[in-house]
Structures are given as C-alpha cells and as structure tokens.
C-alpha cells in the first residue's frame, strides 16, 4: 500500500497526507479478515473488463491481491467483445463493462446482478502543442483527421449520442454531426486504440473518455474540454458471473471496487465516483 511503483498520476498526485496508521492497520487487517470470513479461500480470479479500465484495474488488482492473497488476472477489450465472448461460453468471474448496453442484456443470463462502480465522461484529445482544435466547432473543419470508436463500442455509442446532442442544441450550426463524421478517418474496435492514434500523431483529434488521458498519454496529447451540458456521465456496471467457480472471491473483488480504497484508485485514474 505504501509503495506504488506505477507511473505517478499527473493530477491529484498522491495526497501529501497519508491515511493514519490506525486507518491503514484497520484496512490491512480487517478487510482481508472480512473478505475471507465468508469461508472464501484465496483463488485465481478472472476479470473481464472494458479497455478503458486497463490502468485503474491493473492497480486495483495488485492492491486487491496483496490484501486478500487472491490471484487476479484481467482480460481487457472492448466491452462488446467481452460480451460476445461471455455469451459464447468464455469463463470469467467478474464482468466490468463501460456501458449498460453491453451489460444489461446479460443480467440473469451471464452475470448475477448489476452494480455501478464508477462513472466516466467523454473528452476530445489532440496531439500536444496542436493549435488546430480549440473548440468543438474546429472539429468540422475540412481536412481534419478524426478517429473515434466504432458503433457498438460503448465509447463509439456515446460519441454518437454526443454528436446528436450537439446537433439538437444547434450551437455549432446545421448538420454538425454530418460534418464531423465526414472528417472521421477510422472507427476503431476499442477506445484505447482510438487514443493511440492521437498519441502516435496519426490523427488530429479523437473522442475518448477523460480516464483515457492517462499520465503516459498526457506527455503526448492534450484534452479539449467539452461543454458540460454535452459531456454526459456514463455508468460502468459490474457483476459476478453466474458460473463463477470462485463466487465469494469475485464478490469480494466487486466489494473492493466500491470500497474507499478501490474508489480512490479509480478516481486517481480519472473516473468519477459511482454515486
């Protein structure tokens, strides 16, 4: 807990005051006891998680394993890919999705229940130092190269909803969405691929989650904030699968996500609180 070899977050770096010793002792001693009290032994957990959760969950998995002795492995991919895999019999203990569209249909069939553990919002990123895009209006300039997520990918769906909302508001003129889509040069299968294209300097702009602007990415890209009335907060649902062989440990993982520790790590990686 006290040493994290990961890249330090650029914003809201580690709070200067650490949690009190008693506090840490309490979490360190009691939480595992609490989690193990259900007769759960340490187990190997498989967590299917949306691409956007890559960094946050990697860190959460490490902390969770250290506290509980479990071995958590992750498969990160577009939520829709994970859903297809789960529907076709892939084995996982926990499914964390970036959208309800890819989650709700599975409740009762693949996952037991739905709990929201975080929220996220969209942002536009451009290569660092680029002056071509300062506002949403610039995104429709002819010749600009935009990359977004494909339809069916949660980030792609939210991007299209965002465009529809801008269109309805009429702030940026007629046919905003159509003019925007004319500049789209690629529709990627997951949101991290979208961010990568701007990071590599191949695209002039991309629409990703605020949580995708990780410390590693910040060196190469800058975010163009969206007007808050267009930037809807989208929920991240999580659930334990019905055929999990380690259901108690899987439930403990979900509980950890919702615990102050889990929420702190999620915030650190740019997610918003669940509630």
């Amino acid at each position, binding site marked *: 807990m006290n040493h994290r070899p990961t890249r330090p977050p650029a914003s809201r770096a580690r709070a200067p005051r650490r949690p009190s010793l008693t506090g840490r002792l309490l979490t360190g001693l009691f939480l595992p006891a609490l989690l193990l009290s259900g007769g759960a032994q340490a187990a190997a957990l498989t967590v299917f998680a949306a691409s956007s959760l890559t960094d946050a969950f990697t860190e959460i998995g490490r902390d969770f394993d250290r506290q509980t002795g479990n071995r958590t492995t992750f498969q990160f991919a577009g939520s829709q890919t994970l859903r297809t895999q789960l529907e076709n019999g892939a084995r996982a203990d926990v499914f964390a999705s970036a959208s309800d569209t890819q989650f709700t249909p599975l409740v009762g069939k693949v996952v037991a229940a739905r709990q929201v553990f975080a929220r996220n919002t969209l942002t536009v990123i451009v290569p660092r130092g680029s002056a071509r895009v300062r506002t949403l209006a610039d995104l429709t300039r002819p010749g600009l190269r935009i990359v977004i997520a494909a339809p069916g990918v949660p980030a792609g769906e939210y991007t299209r909803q965002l465009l529809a909302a801008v269109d309805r508001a009429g702030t940026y003129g007629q046919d905003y969405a159509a003019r925007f889509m004319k500049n789209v040069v690629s529709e990627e*299968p997951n949101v991290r691929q979208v961010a990568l294209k701007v990071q590599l300097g*191949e695209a002039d702009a991309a629409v990703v989650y605020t949580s995708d602007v990780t410390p590693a990415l910040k060196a190469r890209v800058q975010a163009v904030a969206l007007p808050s009335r267009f930037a809807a907060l989208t929920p991240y649902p999580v659930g334990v699968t019905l055929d999990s062989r380690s259901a108690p440990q899987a439930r403990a993982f979900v509980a950890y996500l919702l615990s102050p520790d889990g929420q702190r790590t999620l915030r650190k990686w740019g997610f918003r609180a669940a509630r």
Partner: protein
Amino acid sequence: MTAFLLLPTLTLLARGLNASFLPTLLSPAVTDTLRVSLWTTGLSVLLTAALVTPVAFLLARFDFRGKAVLETLLDLPVVLPPVVAGLGLLLVFGRTGLLGAPLELAGVSVAFTPAAVVMAQLFTSAPFYLRAARAGFSAVDRDVEQAAQIDGAGRAQVFRFITWPLAFPFLLEGLVLAWARALGEFGATILFAGSLQGRTRTVTLSVYAALESDLGPALVLSAVMVCVAFTVLLVVRSLAARRG
C-alpha cells in the same frame, strides 16, 4: 487430427451458408468490404508482380557479397508477426515517421488511406512472391538458355521465349500465394490503415468488427473466405501439377 483440422472450417461453412446468406452478402456493409478487399489486394498483387519480378530475377542470376544476408532480410516479413510489420510501417510512413514527416510536408499523407492498406499488404505479402519467383528463375536450366543463344537468340529473346515461359508457373503460384496472404492481412492493416467502412475496412477487419456486434456478417464473410481459400489451394495445386 483430420477432424480437428476439418471441423472448424466445415462448421464455418455450415453456419455461414444459411438462409440469410444472400441478403447478408448483398448488404452494403458486406459488399463495401468485399470491394475494398478486392481492389486493394488486386493492386498490391499488380505492384508485387511489377516490382518484385526484376528483383527475383537478379537475385536468381547474380552472385555478390552479402547476397545471403540480403535474401534473408528480404524474407523477413514472411516470419515477422504482421502487427510488428504494421508498427514498422507506422514508424517509417506515419505522420511523424522517418519518411512520413517529409511526405506530410509535401502534402502527401498515407495513414488511414487505402494506400496504407495496399502498403501493409505489399509489405507482408511480396516476400512470398519473391521466394517463389527466385526459385522459379533458379530452376530454369541454363543450358537451354545457352543453346538458344548459340542458335542466335538475343538476350531479350532468350528471356521472352525461354526463361519466362519456364519460370512462369512458379511466378503464378507465388502470386496466388501472395494474393492470399494480402487478403488475410489484419495486424498491419488495423494498426497502419485504421478501419473505415468502404475505405479501409477489408474483409478481415470486417469479420473482427462484426464479431463485436452482429455475428451474421462475420459468418457470411468467413464462409466466403473459406471458399476463397479452397479455390486458392486448388489453383496452386493445379499449377504445381503443370510445373511438375
């Protein structure tokens, strides 16, 4: 083992060739992707034939220092994972790449265009043709060429009437294999060319994209690919028979 090799392809055929095969095949998403794949692979095969044949001929006929090293380097993309090839292409021809940056200044931009698809295919498939063509030119009996020369044929005539026809089945077989490889290209394309319907989304990218939302088009395209693969192998076999 036979069942292991056969079952997946046969199941793909059975699942793909269902009642909705034709409507799905004729849907815009599928026709777009077949069109993109056909013309990009066609172009990359033409470029392969035009640009690689002379290289193969020279490598088969002339010895020089470091030839073995050069040949090995040229074969490299055959064993290189395609996604690694894509990264390499990106580092050279990407916007901030070695050649990409000057090209960008000149107003030429490759990434996310169909040209990038062709380049990814060319890079990963041309070495297959190079190997076959080199073997083809090497297999031509030099005595026959010399006999023709003694009988008064010029060098161009020897090439046109002796070397070329004898090597031709090899070249054709190599070309078919290169085309098949280009058609199956995925890793380099998605990294270097992106994925946009009707522009850069090839059959393999489409199967991958469709898998994530609607299995239907993925099954139909997979069935088409199985048929194409079967035809390719038949062609290669008959070419090999002609050669033998």
